[in-house]
């Protein structure tokens, strides 16, 4: 694809007409797009034995032909082929359907060859350098953004109105709009000291438990979290303790390196406790195929593929998964390296772990179960003779009619039967109708069920005996080739495993090593993306050569180094970004920007962003006063439309929650992968089938139908109608948009009955948008 962005970015990169061509920002994208798929890193599929991803390869003598002769484009085969009009000669060949080079790109390539065809290492594979600035903290970010604006001759927009600022902050940091009381308090504090009021609001919101819920969802997208197994059967699973671990860890501002290590290898930490084991649920969020007739090994291998690919995407921002079947075509990742990464994840049991629950007294529950069983046993002891008599009277024919478990119990010698088995037999005998027996049996069963009802979660556990890992030819698990040992990507920083077995813990520490050029950049970029709708690196999941170079490379590096030096504190990173002037700008578009920066890459203004699916729901609940703010716990089943659960192979039951659980935050809604909650799917919530590092933001009629007619939104509207009755229309308007209505707006709503006005308010673009 042609990348017009490159042209646009010329000024952000401070390039003037007479400056030398930069390989990384101008040449690499062209070569990657046009040439690397056949003349790149993948040796096996390389054509004509020519590689253009290294200078050595490009300059090599190939039977008297040299692709590039530095300083002499006219004699360079690459240049000749690019210009050729002969379909046999021209490169890339017509059947590759590559877009034609623009005149500007051709000119750049020619100049680059004239200037000596110098290569540079890929920008993302070299360590970030903090630019030399005298400004610190938020001011440094503003300097770097304003530099780009200045070069483009653009002025920054003014700060957004105080109401919109608090709304923006509240939605961004907690996912909930401000309440009228919070707005009033903020406006009052601002009258005294605007800056202090703003900083106080930031700190209040960062300290709110809702912060962990909002940013927890951000992480759960990447963790491909959902509450069922996926594929055809899509049975429910219990892994919500992992979700709570994420929310709690973010609220506690667990440093991101520790946050990472616990999720990738918490079970292997020397001080591993329950919490660290729960964290390993990250890689248990892969779908599980329970269809009949499958080869279990095939799907186990698939889930390991997913774990390798997801680790690469989430932390390294690299498309490691591309090397599953062959060497990567664009980035220096060999197929063998893929399987060395695979080896780390090929060595686990996948157990279900019982988790402690402070609300449960385990000893008491166990004692109750024991006592109930004892009582039942004692009662049965007194009926032993009757039972024996019944048993001895059984014939072959009568036995055949009994159930399987009863037959199994009968096969055991009487002395070896446990209480449950004895009760089972008694229940099959003529005495079964005895009321005391029934009551005792039920009591024992209930107590045992209660004892066994401790919450569980899915975790990783290292196999006692390591599994051998082989390179799999073409990614086919039936075609194992050479054996490989665990290892990482050689093109990145050095791997320094601890003495002993090389395991996931070594991998996790390598991922968050200070020398890693990628992780801090990738995460800082993804946080930035949440605030401005687009990352500094637009391809947030591909920092390789097919990705886009950063729009503000110095800023990206500044953020990455700042993140690292502040001890990987996410809260600190959030705080720094939201305290900038850049973040606080008004989001309205401007005529000059439409002309000069239509995509708002230079950030002269903020961006209006439609709220994420769950937050559309949460906002309606907050505005109408219905939200239940309880944090954590098992997923809930708010009302959903009829028929939704019958779309998959197995019709799943949806036992609609009662009471306050009907109006919990969207984060807590039970999510079946195959039949996800429709009001979320329609607003682009991810399906949990693979990692999601950026949500789409679509805008469709089905969204309109949801907000207008969905039972949950209608219930919110009914509550909102009561708010209008009690507080008036203007107050209700403010609850939805965080600002006072204009007279004309009030007039439009005033023509409607209360319920209609309430419905209109919840359907406003402004209500579901962060301005």
């Amino acid at each position, binding site marked *: 694809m042609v990348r017009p962005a490159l042209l646009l970015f010329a000024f952000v990169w401070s390039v003037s007409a007479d400056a030398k061509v930069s390989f990384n920002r101008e040449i690499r994208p062209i070569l990657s797009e046009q040439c690397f798929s056949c003349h790149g890193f993948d040796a096996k599929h390389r054509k004509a034995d020519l590689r253009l991803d290294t200078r050595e390869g490009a300059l090599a003598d190939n039977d008297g032909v040299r692709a590039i002769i530095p300083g002499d484009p006219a004699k360079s085969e690459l240049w000749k082929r690019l210009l050729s009009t002969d379909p046999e000669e021209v490169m890339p060949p017509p059947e590759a359907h590559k877009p034609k080079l623009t005149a500007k790109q051709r000119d750049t390539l020619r100049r680059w060859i004239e200037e000596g065809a110098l290569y540079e290492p890929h920008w993302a594979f070299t360590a970030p350098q903090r630019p030399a600035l005298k400004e610190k903290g938020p001011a440094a970010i503003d300097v770097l953004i304003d530099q780009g604006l200045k070069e483009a001759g653009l002025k920054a927009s003014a700060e957004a109105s105080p109401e919109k600022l608090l709304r923006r902050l509240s939605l961004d940091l907690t996912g909930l709009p401000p309440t009228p009381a919070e707005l009033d308090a903020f406006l009052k504090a601002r009258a005294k000291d605007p800056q202090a009021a703003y900083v106080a609001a930031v700190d209040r919101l960062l300290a709110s438990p809702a912060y962990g819920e909002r940013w927890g969802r951000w992480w759960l997208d990447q963790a491909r979290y959902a509450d069922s197994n996926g594929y055809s059967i899509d049975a429910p699973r219990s892994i919500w303790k992992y979700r709570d671990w994420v929310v709690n860890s973010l609220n506690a501002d667990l440093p991101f390196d520790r946050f990472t290590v616990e999720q990738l290898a918490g079970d292997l930490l020397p001080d591993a406790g329950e919490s660290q084991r729960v964290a390993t649920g990250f890689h248990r969020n892969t779908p599980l195929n329970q269809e009949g007739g499958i080869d279990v090994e095939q799907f186990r291998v698939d889930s390991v593929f997913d774990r390798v690919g997801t680790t690469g995407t989430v932390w390294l921002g690299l498309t490691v998964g591309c090397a599953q079947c062959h060497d990567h075509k664009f980035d220096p990742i060999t197929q063998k390296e893929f399987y060395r990464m695979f080896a780390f994840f090929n060595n686990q049991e996948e157990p279900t772990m019982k988790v402690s629950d402070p609300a449960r007294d385990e000893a008491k529950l166990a004692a109750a179960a024991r006592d109930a069983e004892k009582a039942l046993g004692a009662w049965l002891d007194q009926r032993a003779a009757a039972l024996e008599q019944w048993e001895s009277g059984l014939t072959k024919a009568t036995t055949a009619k009994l159930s399987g478990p009863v037959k199994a119990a009968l096969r055991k010698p009487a002395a070896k039967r446990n209480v449950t088995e004895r009760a089972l037999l008694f229940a099959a005998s003529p005495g079964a109708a005895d009321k005391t027996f029934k009551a005792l049996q039920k009591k024992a069963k209930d107590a045992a069920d209660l004892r066994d009802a401790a919450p569980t979660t899915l975790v990783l556990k290292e196999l006692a005996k390591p599994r051998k890992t082989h390179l799999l030819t073409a990614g086919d698990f039936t075609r194992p080739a050479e054996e490989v040992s665990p290892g990482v990507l050689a093109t990145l920083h050095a791997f320094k495993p601890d003495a002993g077995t090389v395991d996931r813990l070594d991998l996790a520490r390598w991922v968050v090593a200070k020398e890693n050029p990628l992780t801090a950049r990738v995460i800082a970029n993804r946080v930035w993306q949440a605030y401005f709708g687009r990352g500094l690196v637009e*391809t947030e999941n591909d920092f390789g050569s097919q990705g886009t170079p950063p729009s503000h490379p110095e800023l990206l590096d500044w953020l990455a180094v700042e993140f690292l030096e502040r001890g990987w504190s996410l809260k600190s990173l959030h705080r720094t970004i939201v305290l900038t002037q850049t973040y606080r700008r008004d989001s309205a578009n401007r005529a000059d920007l*439409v002309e000069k920066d239509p995509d708002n890459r230079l950030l002269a203004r903020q961006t209006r962003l439609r709220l994420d699916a769950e937050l559309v729901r949460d906002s309606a609940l907050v505005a109408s006063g219905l939200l239940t703010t309880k944090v954590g716990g098992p997923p809930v089943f708010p009302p959903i439309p009829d028929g939704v659960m019958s779309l998959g192979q197995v019709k799943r039951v949806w036992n609609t929650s009662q009471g306050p659980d009907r109006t919990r935050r969207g984060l807590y809604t039970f999510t079946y992968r195959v039949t996800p909650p429709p009001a979320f799917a329609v607003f682009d919530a991810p399906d949990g089938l*693979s990692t999601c590092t950026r949500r789409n*933001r679509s805008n469709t009629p089905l969204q*309109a139908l949801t907000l*207008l*007619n969905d039972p949950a939104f209608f219930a919110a509207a009914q509550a909102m109608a009561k708010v209008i009755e009690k507080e008036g229309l203007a107050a209700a308007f403010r609850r939805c948009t965080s600002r006072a209505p204009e007279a004309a*707006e009030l007039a439009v709503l005033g023509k409607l009955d209360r319920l*209609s006005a309430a419905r209109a308010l919840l*359907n406003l673009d402004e209500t579901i948008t962060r301005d």
Partner: protein
Amino acid sequence: MTDSFRLLGRTRRHFFRDCGVGLGSIALSSLLAQDKPAPTADPLAPKTPHHRPKAKSIIYLFMAGGPSQLEFFDHKPKLNALNGQPIPASFIEGKRFAFMGSSHRINLLGHDKQFKQHGQSGAWVSDMLPHTAAIADDLCFVKTCKTDLFNHAPAKLFMNTGSGLFGRPSMGAWMTYGLGSECADLPGFVVLQSGPRGPRGGASLWSSGMLPSTYQGVPLRAQGEPILNLTNPQGVAAADQRKVIDAVRELNAGRLAKTGDDEISARLNAYEMAYRMQTSAPAVMDLKGESKATLDLYGIKDPTEASFARNCLLARRLVERGVRFIQLYDTNWDHHGGVTENLQKHLPMKAKDIDQACAALVRDLKSRGLLDDTIVVWGGEFGRTPMGEVREFTGRNHHIDAFTMWFAGGGFRPGMTWGETDEFGFGAVKDPVHVRDIHATLLHQMGLNHERLSVKSQGLDVRLTGVNPAKVLKPLLA
């Protein structure tokens, strides 16, 4: 700008078109006189195809579970002759099958179904499908379809998205992405379901994958409201609904003037289309206007009762309204030989469920002059093995090496049989056709080049046909 981002940008303009009702784009642009955003394309507006298309719409009759080609179309007398004997080892060496550790066996399985040749083309069709047999000269049979995966959910994904992994766009999504929609008051990609349960894989089968959700299939529901949340909440009169939408429009338009955010214009139009859908979707589902002759043709006894036959008639009505891609899922075609899904009892019942309606659809489209630019596709995610299974009753295992599909209309050659299988119907001996070839061919008929229709994702150009070779099946095309 990368393609993936351009795509996200485009999602803002979903359904943004000159809708003719309420606030059109002219009114909008006047609102924006001082602050007009650059003109942008509507993702669902009809787009210029890569080449002149032969077809405008596709109706895909998906027999979920994998119907047996050996009982329906691929006539193999040798199976009866060698019933119970093991298939020669050379056929199955190194092959993997479903249920290998349990009910899978290698003994050939004969059957008692009668086959005849039909029409001028002489196509073999089993007596279980008399109506299909009667239109044999309108159909193009492919006997040698081949897929990669032998478990239901992955194979269904493969047939729909070209990949056994989740997260890829389905065929219908690709079509509407590449061509846009010609229908302003219904979705461009519609899914209809029949049978006792949903298909394995659920909504992933009509997912838009990495494409914006605008392009995902919208299930039209058999019972209750046809589209989720289509009907006004209880107690809300039509006039009130209109008033709410008018108020929303007015306030949103004011906000648009203030912010210059074309996302708001997209939303204004989305609300208008939603309002139109509230009328048009129930209208399309209402079969009152269909003649008795038409209902009889499809074999519909009660036009309000959900059935495959009713879905076939609905598909014709959707095509008439310009819907691009209509997919019908009929479930319970997995005849392993269990108590509820076996070849003796249940296959004939399923055949009866669909035979008349499939044929009626082709006839009906033809008589209305719609068959020329509508492709009808019939098939499952795979076929069934020539070998029998050991279960309570007679049945066959999943089979991926050769199975039969048929195509009608939209430029496919009528009265044709393509491909030949070996004496047992195990594999192709002539002209194998891979799922990728089918995808390439369907795209081709719709005016799209499968190598050019791509989207950037994670550094790759993702295509329906993937990276392995795929070819347009030219001999099948008129």
